[in-house]
């Protein structure tokens, strides 16, 4: 049976991810991320580079390739880890109903 994310148990992984969005994670955070990174709808969040090493925006790739990628033009990231954090927060909210109101960096 696939593990179901439990905010009471998994909440402490939020800080671990915030400290290091990309890199080696604890087994518990890795399990959380493996679950969060699966979208049963077939859609896929992607990072669209507008200027190499300078600017990125998020895009939503549809399940059907014949449909266009929806681009979030108004939210521009200048740091890839900021984008990772934003996607993590959205997914956490979707799966737990809770909002994470902390920035990536204090």
């Amino acid at each position, binding site marked *: 049976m696939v593990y179901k994310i439990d905010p009471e148990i998994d909440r402490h992984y939020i800080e671990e991810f915030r400290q290091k*969005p*990309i*890199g*080696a*994670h604890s*087994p518990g955070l*890795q399990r959380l*991320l*493996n679950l969060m*990174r*699966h*979208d049963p709808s*077939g859609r*896929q*969040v*992607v*990072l*669209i*580079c*507008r*200027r*190499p*090493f300078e*600017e*990125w925006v998020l*895009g939503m*790739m549809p399940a059907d*390739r014949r449909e*266009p*990628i929806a681009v979030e033009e108004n939210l521009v990231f200048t740091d*890839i880890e900021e*984008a*990772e954090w934003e*996607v993590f927060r959205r997914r956490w909210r979707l799966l737990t109903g809770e909002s994470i109101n902390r920035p990536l960096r204090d």
Partner: protein
Amino acid sequence: MLKIVGYPDRYSVAPGEDIAFKISLEEGEQFEARLVRVVNGDCNPAGPGLKFPHVPTKIDGTHAGKPQRIDAGSYMIADGVPAISAHPFTFLAFVWPTLPTRGEQVIAAKWDAATNAGISVGIGDEGRLSLTVGDGAGGTETVRVDHPMLERQWYQLAVTFDPASGAVTLDQRPLAAYAVIRDHGQFRGRVRLSVPAVKSPFYLAGRPEADGTVGHHFDGKIDGPMLLTGLRSHADHDALLAGVAPRDLRTAVIAHWDFSREIESVRAIDVGPFGRHGRLMQMPARGMKGHNWTGEEHAWPRKPEHYGAVHFHHDDIYDAQWETSVTLTIPEDLKSGAYALHARAGDSDETATRETYIPFFVRPPRDKAKRGKRPSVVVLAPTMSYLSYCNHAEHITARGAERQMGRLLTFGHADLYMYDHPELGGSQYDTHADGSGVCYSSRLRPNLNFSPRYHSWLGGPGSALYQYNADTHLFDWLDHKGVDYDLITDEDLHEEGYDLLADYRVVITGTHPEYHSTAMWDGMKAWIDRGGRLMYMGGNGWYWRIGFHKTEPGVIEVRRAEDGIRTWAAEPGEYYQSFNGEFGGLWRRIGRAPNVMAGVGFIAQGFDISTYYRRAPDADNPRAAFIFKDVPDEIIGDFGLVGGGAAGIELDCITPNLGGPPNMLRLASSDGHSGMMMLVNEEFGVVPPNLGGDQNERVHADLAFGETPSGGAIFATSSIAWCGSLLHNDYDNNVSRITWNVLERFLDETPFA
């Protein structure tokens, strides 16, 4: 989004030869072109930056351009088939549809696109066999059977038409029966329209369209197609295939294409008396199991009569057939190395890239007499690995890649263009739209990820480079160190074998030399066995066997057989390469593990972060003293542009009993890998619970060295990320020093051992 794309007509060119570039413009009518040398294609501000020195030539300047399109989709075309609609006729075949619900698809047609006249047999309306007739006066009429076909099931088709009465019979008979399922489709009736005699060629798996393309492609296998005069039945089909047809049936054959003949070619042999041979266009898959495959034989060369099917795909592509936009004659004195055509059609911005670098390589002169004195070093550009990964689109077509990468998938303008243009064709890591694996890859089309400045979704955090652009780190290092070298490509090695390597003392590979034909493998091994010094600068080398087509240039085949890291798997019974009859798959499963060639072999892959090597006891072995000159460090390569370290992406190690030389020294081993760096599946039989590098002691790269009995030697970095560390700290670091120490000694003619 890309506003200019293109491809060269070859990846390797010699001085004095021409290379033609085919360019498509999305905007405007002209572009600026110039030749550049490719030194560094990585614009990461943490590295030295882009380096494309201009090489003035006659092509400098403005050239005319226009949009050029790709007409993807495979089909058969045969000339000389008479106007079948003049008399009663029958079309018989077996089909195995793979996307029966995709819409109207043509199985067979004799159709005039200009007037919409002729006969077209197809499937449509959720996969029901149909006959469409066109009267050439604007009228078309379609009749269908009453039940749809199932996906990936064999059906025997019989289509008869009597033009005098308009009588039509359609019969779609399943070879397998299932309870409750109703897929035996039939139709008995008439069409009202009269069909004029059509002189156009006969088509299978597509038909001509009014815009000059071929469309309405069929996805799936066709086996045993034949045209007969008169009104015939399945029993007649069976009798003809079995060779027991009576004379009156044999003499009714208009054409009978037997796809089990000349499987290695693109010819479709008509075994009937008229020899109305067809040609297979855009490279549909051959050597495919037919309707009668039993499993008693898995090698098509030994029982071709079981391999009479061709698998057509609406997204097959062999040759984009673009017009040449500019041709460069390589100057006789141009140094061998990596080059690109820089084509520019305007300024780039956040939403559009209006310039492109189309890479190619200048090799030494083909005529040995014209070569003069050559350098001792030759770089082997892994162009067949670049080609296997051509338009690698798992980030588009698959799901789960983000999990695998451990981070969001990054799309640059090239990836967005790839998303919008599936007609570019996929890599050998992708599947066709029908789910079958892409087993052929051609360079006669744009290869968007074989380009300087391309940052890959799987290239590791940091520069995010993989394959070609990662190799530009090596080019930059060689340039900075002032190394005099020639450059050859995989295709050159395939064509010329050992003789091409014979005069070089040192071969330096790219970061990921994964794909090798038998001729390439044999040529390299012969050179090593005769005293060559191999610097294997990457990981996952000598992994998959490929085949080259015998008559069609620029296309390779791989069969993802039975083991290895596979994004798709070949069907059982389809492990033999259609291009040459060889058993395909991993070289390791063929009995030539990578270790036999390089002393190390594939052990793990992981794309989240790269790590470092820790010095091992063999580093202090006097045999290795030259390697560690001025390198007292315990930790090696804890820096780099590809994932942040020298050990990452894909790793090799020394593994006993895989045929590697027993005298390899383990100089250093990588450490600190995350759980996302995982053991590869050919390394276990039972799935272990500790796949990741944080729990599995086998998950590591071995920096390795060993002498050969002929005075040569092998040095293996065993990591794709190694070259990403060469440029750190203005090229002054322990990865760079180790690499230089090895090269310096390898250039010394004093024999090893």
